């Protein structure tokens, strides 16, 4: 299996071609097998002894410091592929029903296929060069899927927002790929003394990786694109903007944690960035009118937990939370999608309500997802969030207590969504839940509950990841902090009930994109000004050319 795993990224490409060519009576049916095979390949790799296997074609891009085409099959890659295969398979099945009747249905599945291929390449990439190919590919797929419904206003703008944020991350990663000393670029050896010997050293490299990761995972000031990204179809929000792509930043930090550990200052910044984003995202979620945006801020907040863990020298806790979060957040989104689909596309919290009677499966699975999200004991989130809070209390108590307090905020916002949508008076007349949308929720709900037992009590996950991440602290399950977090989470849910009662849908406060908007406006004004110089008047052109030549001559004379 170790020879096969590096090539799993091609698995969805046949589906892409077949679906584009019009194969399959039901559009997309030809595509759904790729992710399933990917999941099975990753599981088979673990089952057959987890033997690392790399594919290296040297000198593929000779102009890079490390120009080899390097695909790495190790436990971290296999775990990411398993998550990707699992979540995307059920999202594909769900989409068969969700996108039914949409004129662009085939195009939708082609984009999904492209996304899965790029995401798989991202996690298999052994060098910065190959990683970049997947990194930019998922960004492109995200843009195309956010802008998928071009007949709806604002989708293109939302896609371009995502591109703009991604672009900053790409810039940082590009720079990192070209500035490392010759021969460097392998993600696992980036932290060796030889590779951090370039200009700026480990600190510059760590900063660049942090910027790239923060842009992909919407941390700190780069959060602005995820809420608008909810303009895309809901299955996309579940797969790309909750479970997999936005977690790529976390994956990058974990994969290159050796570099981060060489730069304690950047570590600290990462931890604080994650903690503050976690709190900020949770609080902002409380003020959303839109159901999906409320969940989007929840994603930002949970990614904050993962960043905090990465900055607290706990890469395993970070990746463990990535693993559990993928299931329960995809579940929350897909359950929300059932409600949105059944009410004819209604996403306004002020108009949703009382859906638990008509949509029992959606309600039940949303509840399971919510419990996992707040870290209810014995659910998957309970294990992974405790690991992060423990790491916080161990490394930096102030951050630790803030992470603990985050549990209360988590309970508040998810309780508000839960009560607002599924309780209270019925304001819409939903039709029934389609079977094809309901049954993919079941395996995700099961995983949202049991995913933690891949680690506890046997320690299977940490044992598998030890070769990649180094020695891993054993998990302390059902500890006092864990119980405190769970109590705070439940208290948050309880407290959210009066909030929903007093103000259904809350205040319509939209947090704008602020600085990014201003920067964009300035860029466009400058652009229009510059274009105004191209007047078509020959005399001005000639004068400007001659002046230019004179300036260059002077410049050449000076230097």
């Amino acid at each position: 299996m170790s020879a096969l795993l590096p090539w799993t990224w091609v698995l969805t490409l046949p589906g892409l071609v077949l679906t584009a060519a019009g194969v399959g009576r039901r559009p997309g049916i030809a595509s759904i097998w790729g992710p399933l095979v990917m999941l099975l390949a990753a599981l088979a790799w673990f089952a057959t002894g987890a033997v690392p296997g790399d594919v290296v074609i040297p000198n593929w891009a000779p102009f890079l410091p490390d120009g080899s085409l390097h695909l790495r099959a190790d436990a971290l890659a296999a775990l990411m592929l398993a998550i990707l295969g699992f979540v995307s398979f059920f999202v594909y099945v769900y989409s068969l029903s969700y996108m039914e009747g949409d004129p662009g249905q085939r195009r939708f599945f082609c984009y999904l296929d492209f996304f899965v291929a790029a995401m798989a390449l991202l996690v298999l990439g052994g060098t910065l060069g190959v990683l970049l190919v997947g990194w930019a590919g998922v960004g492109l797929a995200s843009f195309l899927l956010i802008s998928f419904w071009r007949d709806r206003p604002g989708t293109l703008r939302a896609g371009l927002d995502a591109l703009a944020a991604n672009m900053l991350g790409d810039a940082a990663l590009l720079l990192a790929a070209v500035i490392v000393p010759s021969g460097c670029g392998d993600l696992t050896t980036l932290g060796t003394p030889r590779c951090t010997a370039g200009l700026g050293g480990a600190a510059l490299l760590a900063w660049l990786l942090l910027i790239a990761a923060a842009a992909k995972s919407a941390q700190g000031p780069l959060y602005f694109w995820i809420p608008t990204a909810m303009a895309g179809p809901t299955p996309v929000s579940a797969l790309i903007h909750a479970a997999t792509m936005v977690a790529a930043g976390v994956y990058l930090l974990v994969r290159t944690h050796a570099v981060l550990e060489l730069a304690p200052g950047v570590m600290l910044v990462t931890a604080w960035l994650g903690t503050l984003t976690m709190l900020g995202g949770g609080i902002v979620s409380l003020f959303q009118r839109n159901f999906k945006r409320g969940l989007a801020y929840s994603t930002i907040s949970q990614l904050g937990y993962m960043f905090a863990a990465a900055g607290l020298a706990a890469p395993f806790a970070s990746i463990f939370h990535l693993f559990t979060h993928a299931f329960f957040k995809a579940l929350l989104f897909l359950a929300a999608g059932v409600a949105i689909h059944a009410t004819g596309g209604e996403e306004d919290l002020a108009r949703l309500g009382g859906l638990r009677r008509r949509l029992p499966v959606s309600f039940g699975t949303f509840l399971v997802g919510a419990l996992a999200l707040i870290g209810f004991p014995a659910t998957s989130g309970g294990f992974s969030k405790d690991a992060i809070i423990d790491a916080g209390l161990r490394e930096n108590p102030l951050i630790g207590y803030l992470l603990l307090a985050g549990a209360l905020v988590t309970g508040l916002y998810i309780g508000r969504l839960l009560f607002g949508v599924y309780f209270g008076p019925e304001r819409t007349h939903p039709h029934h839940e389609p079977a094809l949308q309901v049954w993919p929720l079941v395996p995700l709900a099961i995983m949202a509950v049991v995913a933690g037992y891949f680690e506890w009590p046997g320690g299977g996950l940490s044992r598998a990841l030890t070769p990649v991440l180094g020695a891993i602290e054993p998990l302390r399950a059902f500890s006092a902090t864990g119980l405190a977090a769970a109590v705070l989470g439940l208290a948050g849910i309880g407290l959210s009930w009066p909030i929903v009662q007093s103000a259904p849908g809350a205040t319509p406060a939209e947090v704008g994109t602020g600085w990014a908007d201003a920067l964009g406006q300035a860029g466009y004004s400058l652009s229009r000004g510059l274009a105004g110089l191209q007047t078509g008047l020959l005399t001005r052109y000639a004068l400007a050319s001659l002046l230019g030549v004179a300036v260059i001559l002077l410049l050449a004379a000076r230097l």
Partner: protein
Amino acid sequence: MNIALTPEQLAIVVLVLGAVVVLGFVQALASNATTAPLIGIVALIVAVATTLGGGPVARLAVGAIAVAAAVGLLLVPSLELERPTQRPEVVALILLGAAGAIALATGTDVLQLVLGLETLSLSVAVLVSLGSGERPLEAAFRYFVLAAISLASFLYGIGLLYLSTGSLALPGPGALLGGGVLFQAGVVLIALGVVFELAVVPLQWGLLDAYTAAPPAVAGYAMATAKLGAVIALARLISGVEGVLNHVFIAIGVLSIAWGTFGALAQRDLRRMLAYSAVVNAGFSALALGCGPDGRAAAIFYVVTYAATSLLIFASLAGRGTGPLGLSLISTERLGPLRAAGLALGLLSLSGIPPAPGFWAKLAVLWASWYAAGVWPTVIAVLGGVAGVLYYLRALPDLLAAARQVEIARPLVGSAVVLAGIAVVVLGLVPGLAWTLAGLAGG
């Protein structure tokens, strides 16, 4: 008299002869749209065959320029001309322009360079002017006058060079030792004469308008051949006078990247946006030219990928007229699956999305720039490079959504798209190949 010709000179002779043959039978060829282009393609194949035994510069220059001219020729039958009977003349001009570009790229003394440069820019000016409507003629006139200014600069530079060295040969490594102020000024002026064809700031004005107004097929051909010829010529010029021109090229490169990026950002007309994008891309090759031997190889690599990409884009747009093309209206263009895919691939490559060749070329330039030009030029280039997604990809969702429309069949346009598309795909999947060729030619 000894008239032993080098392979590249033989190629030039073949192309000029091809043009003469076409012009000799203008009347007979005017009635049939495909015969003249086919004669031209035969001439190109013979020209490539003659240089197979030549040096690395000759093989790369003739090969790449011949592909560009071949794509141009395939698009002649669908060209939007003011007078459709002028197609044979267009074929002759394309062949002459290619001959000029080869002379520019491979010439061993400055007189060959100036002859090549002028043949190229005159052909391009006339080609642009033949387009239908008023705008092409106007733009061609502006381009022509501004080209004359750059010619003046070039000739002045030749004078200064001759004054200081007593020779018309391209300055070699030894020339720098005896070179004073006159020599340096001469070299800078000659370089600026060639730089005009690259459309970098501050000499971008005329070409920007010409690229916007020209029929798409002509614009693609002009961008590709002029930039190939100019960059290869400049790489050879700069390698002879290492150090004199580096700062100038880094400065104009960075300035062009910034200028073109901001210019393109708010453009809602695809053709205008592509013209500004030409400035950005010229900026990348200029920056690389100022970055030592690795940089020169990167510049040639860059210009080869850019030529292939712009040929693909403009081949995909061939036949849709010379008017503006709104980005939001792209779904109404009825491009059909092949041309929509070609355009999408071209835009992806320009925006630097891997593994398209535009991405590799940018990496190569950035790598050279980090070590030779320093932090700030590299950072500006990185930002300019990634900002491309904001304007190139704006039309992509509509374009892909419209890809299933029925296409008006034009086999020659299709084969031009396929030819350029294959070049782009090969450059993207095997980036090392073109890099090795470029390194041989530029190092």
